[in-house]
């Protein structure tokens, strides 16, 4: 049966970007407020799931040609690399540094290496959730 999904597909295209923006907001809010890489990653995969619902695996794979298992590896390397960077400076494992930096548009911004670690978490969460959803969601 051929069904008509115009409404779902059109809204999904718009809502997708709203969710992604919200995910990015959550990711950066995690620095001082509730949020962070884990929730941000979950939200991002929520957005991807919405696309999968409205379209199908093949179309989404064409739009985002990403192997999610590779994404897990990249995320892990990011997280471990940030933690292991402490080894180079001979300070205890996982020691982070931070500082206030003046950036052109944002003005006075506090930058923290913990954010790089969080980025790793973010990527791992997207990778894991999307791998799980794609494996158990496929019909064949």
């Amino acid at each position: 049966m051929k069904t008509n999904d115009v409404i779902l597909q059109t809204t999904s295209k718009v809502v997708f970007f709203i969710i992604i923006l919200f995910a990015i907001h959550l990711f950066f809010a995690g620095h001082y407020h509730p949020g962070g890489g884990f929730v941000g990653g979950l939200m991002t995969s929520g957005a991807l799931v919405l696309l999968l619902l409205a379209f199908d695996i093949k179309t989404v794979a064409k739009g985002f040609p990403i192997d999610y298992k590779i994404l897990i590896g990249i995320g892990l390397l990011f997280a471990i690399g940030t933690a292991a960077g402490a080894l180079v400076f001979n300070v205890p494992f996982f020691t982070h540094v931070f500082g206030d930096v003046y950036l052109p548009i944002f003005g006075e911004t506090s930058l923290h290496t913990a954010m790089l670690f969080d980025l790793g978490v973010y990527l791992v969460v997207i990778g894991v959730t999307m791998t799980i959803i794609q494996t158990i969601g496929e019909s064949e």
Partner: protein
Amino acid sequence: MINLLVLPLLIPLVTAALLIFLPKSIRVQRAVSVVSAIGTLAASIVLLLTVKDNGIQTVNVGSWDAPFGITLVSDTLSALLVTTSSLITLSVILYSFRSIGEARERFYYYPIVQFLLVGVNGAFTTGDIFNLFVFFEVMLMASYVLIVIGGTKIQLRESIKYILVNVISSALFVIAVAMLYSVVGSLNMADISQRIAQIGSLPILTVIAVLFLIVFGLKGAIFPLYFWLPGSYYAPPVPVLALFGSLLTKVGVYSILRSYSLFFYHDQAFTHELLGILAIITIIVGCIGAIAYWDVKKIIIYNIIIAVGVLTFGISVATEESYMGTVFYTIHDMIVKAALFLLIGVMIKITGTNDLRKMGGLMKKYPLLGWTFLVAAFALAGIPPLSGFVGKLLIVRGGLAEGAYVGSLIVLLSSLVVLYSVIKIFMNGFWKAPKDYPGEENQPVLSLWAPGALLVLASILYGVGAEVMYPIISQATDALVHPAIYIDAVLKE
């Protein structure tokens, strides 16, 4: 280098992350795994030597000071265990090349083994009770994958049970940690010990001690909680079985040893008595299983339970001598169990069956395998001068000195049963009339035998070199008998 003790965790973790990128190129995966396992082993040996010379090493992760942040602590005991598990993982990886099968190798077998090593080494190294839970979870996640990877029917069935049991025990673990935290208000193991010593023996602490015993007993398979082990461990292929049998249960035993020597040593009349009784029943149950079965895998699996019983008996006696015996025996048992699993794996490969009654006469064609197996069998039973002897002797002497005659006698008798059960494998598998097995010529017997022989060699060296090991082991025991050593090293007062 202050981060030395992180290396045995970090090397496998980085390797695992790198291996995720190359699931299809098996050769690269094998090469990288072996190089990293050798690196881990080297790092842990350096760590062991450093700890031996300079005392307990600690790292306050993220530069948060000791009672507040997470502390990684490497005393002699944990460095010894880390070294042993790295050695075992190295030989299991070598063994897997010719036996695990390409399908599993393509399905992230090697990265998962590395993740398992991260979990095991982390559990041995951490000095924070909640972090111990986290490393338990890392280890369990990896073991969930390893038990189901390949997806044969029996694996799928047993993995459900295994996951259920472990999810429940993990939940109990968190509850136990929360209860402990509500009483003492700290998660740092050294700090907990100090605070418990201050508040003395509250009844609630005894309850928590028993709760921890249930949690660790579920992982370590002591008497009423071992029910899942024979079935679940039977399902996965031999290399995975060797990893599980030698590492996972020992993590449980190590946790009991650590928590009962560091936290719960105030109400010994109840907690250690209970542990002792459970240990004795565990030994008996294991003995019954080891005698009853004709299946080689099952026999060795029940031998795990016997060993856990012997070790927990050593912990329950709680004197310096019995602790020393426990440490000695733990390391011996890890090495020998892994070796035995790998060797019976070769037998199963040759004959194509698990059933002893269908085997026979392997000695004629594979004398090397036969004699290696015999040495490993004698070591397991504790025949001097092999490595099982010293540990058992110390445990029994400690038990007799404390007046635990029944337990000591049962530990001694269990040696006979262990000897009988492994000699049964030897007599039926290697002696008797030779038989023809279809397809035995194609099996790479020599390259499968080598990793097992490596472990047997390590076990012989460990037994013969007991004199050399003695100062290291007694250093490890010191920190168990005198918690103050451990506490001072962590809190640096």
